[in-house]
């Protein structure tokens, strides 16, 4: 079965309520059609439900709408959902039935679910379900996903057999009817409306037909809208009663402030600022627990297990590696939680409204703000969410710059490095300086993305005029359980996807660091020869071993290239290993430095103590700033590269994104280090 509806109608909430935690989010890279699949059981039957992206009509303007229409039109009969659930909005029947009315003419088995029924009751809206059902020829169920009303009735209706009968055609003018029917005969379409959609959406031979018969597609579409709204207007008048005395216009009242020319922006900035402080302050505690927990687990393992290669692999390779992933979880969870609140409450669309003009200066649309903000959690879903942008140029620019936003994978890297140069207890007023510095890094990402956008705006050419036409959903109190399910899904897929890469990298690193060539194997003899000492201290042997391990050799081979940035070969190793995923940096650092020390310290303490060959601090101010800049701009994320390729279907744009970000990172780090050293 599949769930269809306009965006912002509580579709996700309904989906979460029906399926709970039994969901599979399409694994980002490599999936052809991204759809959330969920499962639930009813009357001993296992039901699979697909959550299709929100669309406003069957005439797609953006690529996610295209996906849905393609899915509805081209899925072969045997794979087509047994039933469609079309979602409408009890608070705005006429408008939300528009999509239903179109889908209805596809004559597939379907159920109309009308959401927000409880809220509608409170507002004095009464819907005559039987009348609607009789007029539309499909089962109609009132639901309120948030209050869990009507869910069982909906499930019952899904399992019942429904016969769909073709309705009288009311989407073309009578004078155009014969032309449509003769077109239907030519294309052998199933139903008149399928023929209509082919004529309107398809090119090639179809446009020849249109030309030959003097069909003005645009006029047909316009007529369709007028005729359908006329039909729906009458229908709603007959079956929906509105007690005007109970009507409250909460949303427009609130919007007087939230979209105000001054206050709107003040509130928006305050919300952003609040998010950053929340990430830092709230997440700090669980992160500390995880960090020290991992450190003690690590020392416990090495103390309890019999000494040997396996014990070392666990305590110095695997455990610090896993710790490097787990330490993100609090921040990612908080970020996804807050974003889900913004999205579900309806505020996200206000941001689009407020920011559109500003974004247009940078060649983007107000809709680009959504990917940019979600890019602060993770660039992968963010780049996918750019699909809602209709204009190709605006969409391309958005996709290209989104990875510059500070994603959650950068946070641990930033936290570790910022912690090295600014003490924990430094405050300016009530604000922790570390928190302000992190905010500075977020700002840097935003500013740089806008600069790059300006450049791209000048480069990319387009022949299509862009437009913006969006629904402003009613403000709703988000449903916490549904929000938590989204957070859980995101965190789970993040830990799983990133975790696998990090785990594999940790093991490979450990093996590379503990094996080497001749010099490595005979470290003791080589050292005693060169230093002409009988008993070389163990510390020196370990250091020499690491330097001559396969990992050390790799690190040293790129040292000439990274020396101008202020990095030694150990950081070089971390750079190499974090090419695929930047968060690996922290776990690599902790793996590399555990190999050399017996003490179990937290990552940050280890790095603070680290000295380079000449005795100066390995992570001095200049090197730390240079590293911060490198990680701010470099595209060290295989998943982002994969998703950009998938979304743009172009090697050129994917390559450009990787190239410009790498160059930007290298030169920014270079300049910073040379100026500060």
């Amino acid at each position, binding site marked *: 079965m599949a769930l269809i509806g306009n965006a912002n109608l509580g579709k996700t909430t309904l989906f979460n309520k029906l399926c709970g935690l039994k969901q599979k989010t399409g694994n980002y890279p490599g999936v052809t059609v991204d759809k959330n699949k969920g499962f639930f059981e009813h009357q001993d039957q296992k039901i699979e439900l697909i959550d299709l992206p929100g669309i406003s009509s069957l005439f797609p303007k953006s690529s996610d709408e295209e996906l849905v229409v393609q899915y509805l039109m081209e899925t072969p009969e045997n794979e087509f959902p047994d039933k469609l659930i079309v979602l409408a909005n009890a608070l705005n029947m006429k408008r939300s039935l528009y999509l239903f009315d179109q889908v209805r003419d596809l004559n597939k088995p379907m159920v109309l679910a009308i959401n927000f029924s409880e809220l509608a009751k409170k507002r004095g809206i009464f819907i005559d379900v039987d009348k609607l059902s009789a007029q539309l020829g499909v089962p109609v169920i009132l639901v309120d996903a948030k209050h869990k009303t009507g869910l069982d009735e909906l499930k019952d209706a899904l399992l019942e057999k429904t016969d769909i009968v073709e309705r009288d055609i009311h989407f073309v003018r009578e004078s155009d009817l014969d032309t449509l029917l003769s077109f239907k005969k030519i294309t052998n379409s199933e139903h008149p409306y399928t023929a209509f959609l082919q004529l309107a959406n398809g090119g090639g031979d179809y446009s020849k037909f249109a030309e030959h018969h003097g069909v003005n597609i645009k006029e047909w579409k316009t007529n369709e809208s007028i005729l359908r709204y006329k039909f729906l207007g009458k229908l709603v008048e007959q079956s929906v009663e509105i007690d005007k005395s109970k009507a409250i216009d909460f949303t427009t009242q609130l919007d007087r402030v939230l979209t105000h020319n001054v206050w709107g922006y003040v509130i928006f900035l305050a919300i952003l600022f609040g998010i950053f402080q929340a990430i830092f302050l709230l997440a700090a505690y669980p992160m500390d627990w995880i960090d020290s927990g991992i450190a003690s687990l690590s020392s416990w393992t090495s103390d309890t297990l019999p000494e040997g290669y396996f014990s070392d692999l666990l305590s110095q390779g695997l455990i610090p590696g896993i710790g490097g992933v787990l330490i993100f979880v609090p921040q990612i969870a908080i970020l996804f939680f807050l974003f889900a609140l913004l999205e579900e409450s309806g505020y996200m669309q206000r941001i*689009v*409204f407020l920011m559109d003009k500003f974004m247009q200066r940078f060649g983007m649309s107000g809709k680009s703000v959504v990917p940019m903000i979600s890019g602060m959690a993770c660039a992968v879903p963010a780049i996918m969410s750019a699909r809602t942008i209709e204009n190709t140029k605006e969409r391309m620019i958005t996709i290209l710059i989104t990875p510059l936003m500070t994603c959650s994978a950068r946070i641990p890297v930033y936290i570790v490095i910022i912690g090295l140069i600014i003490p924990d207890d430094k405050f300016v007023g009530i604000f922790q300086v570390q928190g302000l510095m992190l905010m500075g890094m977020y700002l840097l990402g935003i500013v740089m993305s806008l600069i790059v956008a300006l450049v791209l705006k000048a480069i990319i050419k387009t022949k299509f005029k862009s437009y913006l*036409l969006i*629904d402003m959903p009613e403000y709703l109190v988000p449903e916490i359980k549904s929000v938590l399910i989204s957070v859980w899904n995101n965190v789970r897929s993040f830990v799983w996807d990133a975790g696998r890469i990090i785990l594999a990298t940790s093991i490979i690193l450990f093996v590379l660091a503990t094996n080497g060539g001749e010099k490595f194997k005979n470290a003791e003899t080589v050292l005693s020869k060169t230093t002409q000492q009988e008993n070389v201290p163990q510390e020196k042997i370990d250091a020499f071993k690491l330097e001559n391990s396969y990992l050390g050799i790799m690190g040293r081979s790129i040292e000439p290239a990274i020396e101008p940035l202020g990095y030694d070969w150990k950081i070089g190793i971390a750079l190499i290993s974090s090419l695929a995923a930047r968060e690996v940096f922290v776990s690599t650092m902790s793996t590399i430095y555990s190999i050399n020390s017996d003490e179990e310290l937290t990552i940050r303490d280890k790095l603070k103590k680290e000295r380079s060959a000449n005795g100066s601090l390995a992570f001095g101010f200049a090197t730390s700033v240079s590293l911060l800049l490198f990680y701010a701009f470099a595209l060290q994320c295989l998943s982002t590269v994969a998703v950009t390729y998938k979304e743009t279907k172009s090697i050129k744009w994917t390559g450009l994104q990787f190239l410009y970000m790498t160059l930007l990172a290298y030169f920014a780090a270079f300049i910073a280090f040379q100026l500060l050293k």
Partner: protein
Amino acid sequence: MKLSTLEKYFTGTIIEILEGSFSAKLFEFGILPGASFTLIGKAPFNGPVYIKVDDSLIALRKSEADCILVK
């Protein structure tokens, strides 16, 4: 009058949608001749216009609002 030239909180009726590349989309959103509307907000610096048409809340760019004639 063009919708784009109105002041906040103006209430009126749409009379005509001028032909444009997105006019079909406006129709789909229920912005039709004869529909009544209220102008709820205007973003600064000629930013988008925020209207209520029937029961729908819709935001659109000023350039699109230019194509909507109202009274």
